[in-house]
C-alpha cells in the first residue's frame, strides 16, 4: 500500500475544464468513437431496428449495474446478482406450472429478488461479514437451489402477455426494456446525486467510521443498498425470462462479472467512495455498442470479451501511466 500525497491547488479548475476532463466525457468520446467506427465498418449498423436490437445487449445488465454502482460506492460488492436472476426466474417458472398469471409472476420475481437481497444484507450488515465472500457463497447457494429444483430440466409455457416485458415495444423501435432502463437510470441518478441517502452512500464509501460518527446509520444504508440490488436483479429476471421465454438454472451465467465490469468502466472506484450514474449509463452503451458492432462484423462473442477485458484494464491503466510519464 503506497501513501499518496495530494497537493491542493490554489484555485479550483473552472467548471468547464472540470467537465471536459472528467471520466464521463472521456468515456463519451470512446463511445462516440466506437459509434463512428461501427457505422463505417458495417452498412447494417445505422439501422433503427438493428440499433434497437443492440440495446437488449445491455439493458438488463445495466438495470442491475445502477444498484451495484451504489453498492460499490458504499464500499461493498454483490457477486450473487446473476444467481438471484436464476433463482427468481426459477421461482417464476415454478409458479407458471402452478397456473399463476402474469401479475403474480412479476410479483414473485420481484419478491424473490428482494428476499435474496435481504439475505445478503443481513449476512453483511447484521453479522458484519465481508461482502465479497458472503456473496460468493450466496451466489453458489442461490444458483444451487435453482439447480436442485430444475436439474437438467427447463420451465416453459409462460403466458402470452408475459412476453411484453422482454419483447414488447412501447413506440416504434423503442422497446419496453429500453424505457424501463431509462426510467431506472433517472431514478438512481436522482437517488445518488440529489438526496441525503445518496450523500450518505458517498460518505460511507469514503470513511465508514466517520460516517457513523456523523450520525449516518451505516448498517441500515448498506442493508437498503443490498435490498435495492436484489430488487433490481428481480426486475432483470422478469425482463430476461420474458425475453427468453424459458428458464434454465444456467440462465444469466457469468453476468455478475460483466455487471461489475460495466460499473468499473463507468468510472466507479472499486474501492468505494467515488463514481456517478451518468458514467455507468455511458459504460453500458460502450459495452453494448462494442458487442453489437463486432457482432455485425462476425467477430465471435469471446473475442468481444477480450476487447471488454482490455478496455477495463486500459481505461484505468492509461490515466495512471499518463500521470507517471508526466512525473
Amino acid at each position, binding site marked *: *500500500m*503506497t501513501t499518496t500525497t495530494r497537493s491542493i491547488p490554489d484555485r479550483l479548475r473552472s467548471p468547464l475544464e472540470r467537465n471536459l476532463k472528467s471520466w464521463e466525457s472521456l468515456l463519451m468520446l470512446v463511445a462516440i468513437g466506437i459509434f463512428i467506427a461501427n457505422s463505417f465498418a458495417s452498412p447494417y449498423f445505422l439501422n433503427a431496428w438493428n440499433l434497437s436490437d443492440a440495446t437488449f445487449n445491455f439493458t438488463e445488465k445495466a438495470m442491475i449495474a445502477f444498484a451495484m454502482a451504489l453498492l460499490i460506492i458504499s464500499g461493498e460488492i454483490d457477486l450473487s446478482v446473476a444467481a438471484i436472476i436464476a433463482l427468481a426466474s426459477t421461482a417464476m417458472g415454478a409458479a407458471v406450472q402452478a397456473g399463476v398469471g402474469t401479475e403474480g409472476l412479476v410479483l414473485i420475481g420481484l419478491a424473490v429478488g428482494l428476499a435474496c437481497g435481504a439475505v445478503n444484507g443481513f*449476512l453483511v450488515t447484521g*453479522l*458484519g*461479514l*465481508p461482502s*465479497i*465472500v*458472503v456473496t*460468493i*457463497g*450466496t*451466489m*453458489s*447457494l*442461490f*444458483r*444451487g*437451489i435453482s*439447480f*436442485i429444483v*430444475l*436439474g*437438467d430440466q427447463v420451465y416453459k409455457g409462460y403466458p402470452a402477455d408475459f412476453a411484453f416485458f422482454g419483447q414488447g415495444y412501447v413506440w416504434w423501435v423503442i422497446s419496453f426494456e429500453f424505457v424501463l432502463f431509462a426510467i431506472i437510470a433517472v431514478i438512481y441518478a436522482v437517488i445518488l446525486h440529489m438526496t441525503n441517502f445518496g450523500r450518505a452512500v458517498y460518505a460511507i464509501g469514503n470513511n465508514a467510521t466517520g460516517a457513523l460518527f456523523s450520525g449516518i446509520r451505516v448498517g441500515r444504508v448498506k442493508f437498503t443498498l443490498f435490498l435495492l440490488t436484489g430488487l433490481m436483479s428481480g426486475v432483470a429476471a422478469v425482463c430476461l425470462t420474458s425475453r427468453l421465454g424459458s428458464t434454465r*438454472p444456467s440462465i444469466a*451465467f*457469468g453476468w455478475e*462479472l460483466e455487471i*461489475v*465490469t460495466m460499473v*468499473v468502466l463507468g468510472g466507479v472506484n*472499486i*474501492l468505494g467512495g467515488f463514481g456517478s450514474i451518468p458514467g455507468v449509463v455511458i459504460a453500458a452503451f460502450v459495452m453494448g455498442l462494442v458487442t453489437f458492432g463486432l457482432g455485425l462484423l462476425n467477430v*465471435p462473442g*469471446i*473475442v468481444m*470479451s*477480450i476487447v*471488454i*477485458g*482490455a478496455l*477495463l*484494464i486500459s481505461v*484505468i*491503466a492509461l490515466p*495512471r*501511466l499518463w500521470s507517471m510519464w508526466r512525473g
Partner: protein
Amino acid sequence: MKRILASRELLLLVAIALVLGIISSRFPAFITLSNLAAVFNDTSPLILLAIGQMIVILTKCIDLSVTANLALTGMVVSLINISAPGLPIVVTLVVATGFGACLGMFNGILVWKLDIPPIVVTLGTMTIFRGTIFLLTEGKWVNSHEMSDTFKAFPRTELLGLPVLSWFAIAAVILFTIVMTRTTLGRAFYAAGGNPHAATYAGINVGRTQFWAFTISGALAGLTGYLWVSRFAVAYVDVAGGFELTVVAACVIGGVSIMGGIGSVPGALLGALFLGIIANALPVVNISPFWQMAISGGAIIIAVVLNAQANRTKGRIILKRAEHAT
C-alpha cells in the same frame, strides 16, 4: 494446546472426519484406502490452485484469473505437443510452469506498478486469457488423439501406488508449507496482508510481495493447466470455466481471511479436500449432483461466519482499569 484445539484446521479435520463417518456408515466402500486415494487424486488440481490463491489472498489481493490461466497454459502446451510430440515431459512441465508464471507476473505488474485494484486486474485478464485461447485455436478443441501418449500418460503414471498428479499436490503442500513458515518471503506475505503500513515500515516492499504472490499463483495455475488437459485428454476454451470461485471457496472454508494476513497451507489443503470429498460423495450416497453447488455455497457461508467469530480480535483492553476508576 488450547490454541491447537481451537484452530480452524482441527475444526475442519473434525468436520471432514464427520462427513466421512456419515458416508461410511451407509457406504463402507467409500472409505477404503483406494477410493480415498482416488478422491485425493481428483481433488489435487483444486489443492494446487487453492495454495496459490491462498498466498494471493494473504496479501490482500484476489486472483480471479487462475482458471483462465490454467485453460490458456493447458492449450499452449497442447499446441506445442501437437507440433513437437517428441518433446520430453520435463520440458513440457517447465514450459507450463514458466508460461503460467509469466501470466501471473502480468497480473502482478499491473497491481504493483500501476496500483490497479487486484479484483479489476484479474477480472480483466480473466477474459483476456480465455479470449486468447480462442484466438489461438479459433474455437477448435485439441482432442485426445492429437496428443502424444507420453503427454497424456504422465499425470496417471503411478509412483509408489499414487498417480503423479497426487504427488504434485503433495509436493506443493510440503514446499509451500516450508516457504510460508520458514522463509522471509513467506513471512513477508503474512506481513504485507496483515498490516501493509507496518510491513512498509519494516522494510518490506508490499507491492513487490504482491507481485511474487501473483507469480506463484500463476506458476501453480500453469502447472495445473498441463496436468488438467493431459488428465482429461482434451483442451478447449472453457476448460475449468467458473472454477475460480470454487478455488476461492476452498480457501475461505480453509480459514483464509479475505481481509488478508490470516491463512495457512494446511488450511487451504483441508478446505479443498472438504469440497473434493463432498463432490465425490454425492453420487455415492445417491444425492443428485445438482445439490453440489448449493452445498458448497452453504459451506462457504458457514465458514465465513466461523472465520469472523474466530478472528474477532481479542485485543488487550488497556483502558479497563481507568474506565472502572471513573
